[in-house]
């Protein structure tokens, strides 16, 4: 009788510990851009060959809809550009640009994020977890997907334009008791990081394009601009699908 009670107590503790540990787990799978390379690129550029980088435009989209640009994201992009040490100074959106007779590059960036919270599946799974008195919480996995696509268009002082694109996607897999608002931030942060790293990698490969000594200023200091109205979006853009990671769990 005593040994049976002891056995059941041990089994109970093991069950409780397993439920608690497994039920609180979460992990993030990030799928980098298919074009991203594994090896990092290193280029050197003399200090006097570096030119200012002026952020001229920044557009953000979420699930196909335009939204207000986030200062936080812009700052993060500028920090990432700064880390390349490719440019002498960085001027944020609306900042004071260097004089027109100075060599500089202007940048226009778009940041398109796609959120796939798997709400329908989460609601059903939540119902099943609740109906099981939370016993199934360690085995039922919930997912939250996020993808980011960035494009950076850089115009050199002589009017030449280069465009870089990068994308990344990720999914946070979690069990009910492991959910926290921070995990969404972590997912977005990691996906954006992968995206920006790929973008900067492409930028650094073009170091020669941005060296001040490479190309003289054009004769005329007057820069030409093209002004046109944007076509209104006649129909909402379709929601893109977040790729689901097949990477093994860590």
């Amino acid at each position, binding site marked *: 009788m005593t040994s049976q009670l002891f056995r059941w107590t041990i089994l109970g503790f093991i069950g409780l510990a397993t439920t608690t540990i497994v039920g609180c787990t979460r992990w993030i799978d990030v799928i980098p851009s298919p074009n991203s390379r594994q090896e990092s690129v290193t280029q050197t550029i003399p200090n006097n060959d570096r030119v200012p980088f002026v952020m001229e435009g920044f557009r953000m989209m979420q699930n196909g809809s335009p939204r207000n640009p*986030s200062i*936080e*994201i812009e700052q*993060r992009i500028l920090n990432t550009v700064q880390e390349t040490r490719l440019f002498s100074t960085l001027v944020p959106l609306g900042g004071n640009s260097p004089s027109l007779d100075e060599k500089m590059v202007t940048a226009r960036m778009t940041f398109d*994020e796609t*959120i796939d*919270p798997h*709400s*329908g599946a*989460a*609601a059903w*799974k*939540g*119902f099943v*977890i*609740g*109906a099981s*008195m*939370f016993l199934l919480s360690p085995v039922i996995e*919930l997912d*939250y997907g996020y993808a980011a696509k960035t494009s950076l268009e850089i115009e050199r002082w002589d009017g030449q334009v280069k465009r870089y694109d990068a994308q990344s996607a990720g999914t946070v897999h*979690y069990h*009910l*008791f492991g*959910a*926290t*608002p*921070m*995990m*969404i*931030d972590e997912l*977005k*942060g990691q996906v*954006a990081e992968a995206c920006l790293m790929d973008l900067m990698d492409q930028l650094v490969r073009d170091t020669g394009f941005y060296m001040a000594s490479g190309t003289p200023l054009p004769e005329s200091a007057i820069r030409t601009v093209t002004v046109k109205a944007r076509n209104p979006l006649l129909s909402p853009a379709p929601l893109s699908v977040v790729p689901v990671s097949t990477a093994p769990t860590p």
Partner: protein
Amino acid sequence: MTAAGTYAADGSPMITVGTQEVGLTAGYLLPHRLTTDHTTKQQGPALMPSWMMTITDPVGEGWNRGQVSIGAEAVYIEFREPVLTHGFGFTPKIKYTFVALDQVRPYVEFAGGPFWTDLAGRIPEESSRFNFVLTSGFGLSWFITPQTSLNVGYRFHHISNAGTRYPNLGLNASLPFGGFSFYF
């Protein structure tokens, strides 16, 4: 990359996936005798501490835009009529909160789980002490701060033993309630 947590920059609540809610609700049980066989006028105060976890971002458009959360609630009822007895229960709970109105958020909820009461056996409707409780209702959360809400609402309350023992007519009641929740 966007601000997560329980509040947005403008002070309105921003409840995201993973936001937890703990709450305390109190109410008073008022009997419904739905058939002529029901004679007991069970009534008394009820206390319901709860925990919830938001599991979806807002879904839908317009007035029915809302979020799903699941969790659990403990129920204690002190039956003052027809005889002073007690009831304890534990109910997993699912809730859909309408978020269109921002600081005032209506919700509908459903909960069900085991319920023990010593009232059973002393009344003609119920014979076993082990029962189940099912509740469904609606309420209104008023966010007085981005992380705190006052809640009022109504629940229909049913207690029966799922036919495990007879008689099993079931006890039905209304439960108007009020309380507060804290989000984190």
